[in-house]
């Protein structure tokens, strides 16, 4: 959890990478202040913009959730529930026309009524803003106001993550009167409003109750304070000394946290693993052979590395999709046990009995301690690794430019389509060599057109194919470690990776 590493992850986070983010914002302070209970959260990164059209998901989400309601809500199990939209349906079998019915009688904190026209204005504004959440509405071709509370979206291509993304920043509704300077004066329909007098950008953000939205049941806190503390040690100390009620702590200090009377909650986070992106062998011809990619999977001791370098805070895996999600298949985690002999055999079958040289990038942000171990383990099966150091600032740009045939990366969302599309689609920059596997392309197209209940088996087929083809060599899914004060209760469920503001309540 290097400062820049976490921050980088956050900066790059797609909507689904909310784990770190929302966890970083969690907490509640039962200290009775003037008006009632205050919830003080320690966040792992500063907010980007408070304007949803320019604001990022990930760590940015925590700062926006108090202010804005979204069109949908993302449930703890990653399914999508009603938000400002109460119902929706695709009106064609191709799933390219979405009709949404909106909640009636909602007003923004400035008194402006919320209706279908406002939705149209917001979505068009988000698309035009070219901000961190604009990707989510890239598939939207046109928006029609079909009635005061009915809006219809025409899509260029079916988008199975659209409704999920509408539960995050892309679906947050801003009052049209605030379009001019929402970053400084944000106006939403959310349970809280920004207390600008007690907010210092880059340091702390204070939210007080929205008088138009007296929802004390779902939001028991009268005040929310979010402190931006990017440094993991400083954040952990703030949590240990009660300066904040909840936030991501340093895994190494779990015992100290328990000793100080804090609750330690572990949530599955992101997958650390090697992306074997040069699957057509353009830079490293050897990687074209699936046997070589499988050999790499067998050569790396994921569970051992997890134990040695990450103190075992996580679980070993050989698949990129999140445990508990529709695409996940526990059987696949047994696909590539650590087996150097088998790796050597596979390399020999591929005509590489004498091994080969592989140029990989190394960095200081995510997992610096991992590189020597990785080189050693690959060397044992005959793959000689040569590292090219890459500066933290340039990580993703360098990695996704097609310069390296493979790289170690930390990635993970809990929404299958976001992962599938980013990791596997030949159209995405995150597939730097634009490799188009016909099986994958076909499955992606079929998933996109399928209703939710039919997607699961297709996702598992896709996942199985990707693991068999060894497009990646995942090592483990690390845990995010949340420290929280005893005065706070978290409605955290097993496997839950997404925490919303409503998941934090005063204890007792």
């Amino acid at each position, binding site marked *: 959890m290097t*400062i*820049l590493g976490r*921050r*980088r992850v956050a*900066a*790059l*986070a*797609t*909507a689904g990478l909310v784990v770190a983010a929302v966890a970083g914002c969690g907490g509640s302070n039962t200290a009775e202040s003037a008006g009632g209970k205050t919830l003080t959260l320690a966040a792992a990164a*500063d*907010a*980007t*913009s408070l*304007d949803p059209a*320019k604001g*990022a*998901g*990930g760590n940015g989400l925590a700062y926006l959730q108090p202010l804005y309601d979204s069109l949908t809500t993302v449930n703890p199990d990653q399914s999508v529930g009603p938000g400002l939209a109460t119902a929706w349906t695709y009106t064609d079998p191709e799933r390219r026309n979405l009709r949404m019915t909106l909640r009636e009688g909602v007003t923004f904190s400035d008194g402006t009524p919320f209706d279908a026209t406002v939705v149209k204005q917001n979505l068009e504004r988000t698309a035009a803003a*070219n*901000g*961190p959440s*604009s*990707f*989510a509405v*890239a598939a939207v071709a046109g928006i029609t106001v079909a009635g005061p509370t009915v809006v219809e979206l025409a899509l260029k291509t079916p988008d199975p993550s659209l409704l999920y993304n509408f539960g995050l920043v892309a679906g947050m509704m801003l009052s049209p009167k605030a379009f001019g300077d929402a*970053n400084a004066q944000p106006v939403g329909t959310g349970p809280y409003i920004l207390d600008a007098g007690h907010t*210092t*950008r*880059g*340091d*702390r953000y204070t939210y007080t109750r929205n008088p138009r939205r007296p929802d004390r049941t779902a939001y028991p806190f009268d005040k929310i304070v979010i*402190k*931006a*503390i*990017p*440094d993991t*040690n*400083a*954040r952990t*100390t*703030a949590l*240990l*000394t009660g*300066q904040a009620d909840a936030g991501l702590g340093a895994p190494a200090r779990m015992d100290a946290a328990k000793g*100080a009377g804090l609750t330690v909650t572990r949530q599955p986070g992101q997958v650390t693993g090697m992306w074997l992106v040069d699957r057509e062998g353009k830079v490293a011809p050897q990687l074209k052979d699936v046997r070589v990619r499988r050999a790499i999977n067998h050569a790396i001791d994921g569970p051992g590395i997890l134990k040695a370098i990450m103190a075992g805070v996580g679980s070993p895996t050989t698949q990129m999709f999140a445990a508990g999600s529709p695409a996940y298949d526990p059987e696949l985690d047994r696909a590539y046990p650590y087996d150097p002999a088998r790796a050597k055999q596979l390399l020999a079958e591929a005509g590489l009995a004498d091994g080969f040289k592989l140029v990989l990038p190394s960095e200081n942000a995510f997992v610096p301690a991992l590189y020597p171990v990785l080189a050693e383990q690959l060397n044992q099966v005959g793959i000689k690794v040569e590292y090219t150091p890459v500066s*933290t*600032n*340039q990580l*993703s*740009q*360098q990695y*996704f*430019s097609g310069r390296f045939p493979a790289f170690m990366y930390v*990635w993970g969302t809990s929404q299958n389509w*976001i992962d599938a599309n*980013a990791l596997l689609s030949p*159209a*995405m*920059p*995150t597939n730097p060599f634009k490799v188009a596997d016909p099986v994958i392309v076909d499955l992606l197209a079929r998933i996109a057109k399928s209703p939710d209940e039919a997607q699961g088996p297709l996702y598992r087929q896709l996942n199985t194919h990707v693991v068999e083809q060894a497009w990646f060599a995942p090592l483990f899914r690390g845990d995010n470690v949340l420290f929280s004060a005893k005065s706070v209760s978290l409605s955290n469920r097993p496997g839950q990776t997404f925490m919303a503001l409503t998941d934090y309540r005063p204890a007792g």
Partner: protein
Amino acid sequence: MIGFIARRSSSAVILLLVVSALTFFLMDLLPDPGQGILGVSATDEQLAAKRAELGLDRPVVLRWLDWLGAAVRGDLGTSWTTGLRVSDSIGTKLPVTLSLTLTATLVCAVLGIALGLIAAIRRGAVDRSVHVLAVAGFAVPGLWVGILLVTVFAVRLEVLPATGYVPLAESPVDWARSLVLPVATIAVAGVAAIAQQTRNAVAEVLERDYIRTLRSRGLPARRVLFVHVLRNATPPALTVVGLQFIGLLGGALVIEQIFALPGLGSLAIGATSQSDVPTVQGVVLVSVCVVVTVNLAVDLATGALDPKVGMR
């Protein structure tokens, strides 16, 4: 002296131009910041649009000239990531960094000069203890001292806040409390440097012939010390104080991280890691201005104390 200030100012302008250009061109070596801003889910079209929006499709020299033209008019631009005006961001962060560095410098100067004086006058055991303290202060890493202080005073004894900053206007007491641990962390090494420098300078002056003459003419020891010795021994100490302040501006980067102080250092780290060129440029510009001003002030003070230092 006006000529002196004018010459120093013009060389400061050249320095600002060079440093701002260097930073700008170095930042430009980083690949496209678009992915950092838009996230890995962005499509190629969105990345291209972002490049055009930021003007990255234009030659770097033209972009620097644009930035310079605006900066001269007092417009430092808008952050690529937070959308905040860079001057506003700096306006809220600079007081934090200045509170930290000025207080730390003041504490170091007062304690350091006092300790140095005592060591030079008393000699013997006192001198040796100050010397040992000074070496220890140099040897111990500030980072470690900071973590130790936090563990003892914030975590164990719970007498001081571990992290955070309270603006002076909000509560002077809490402002002071929020600065105690960071300032103490800096002071451990800072006091040592100034004490050593003062001790050596005073000891040297004390051995000069004119001091012996002054003493032999029956001037009170106190007057000899505070008027004649100190006046001559101060310039070297002052130079160290000035250097220390400038060093602190850089060191604030680390201290601000440990204590979660929202100062220029935190701003610079965040902005650099996200390739936020306008913010980095703004921070660099302000830092250079502060350094130049401090240097000038130290030179003027030295000149006022020591007529032999020519203001040319």
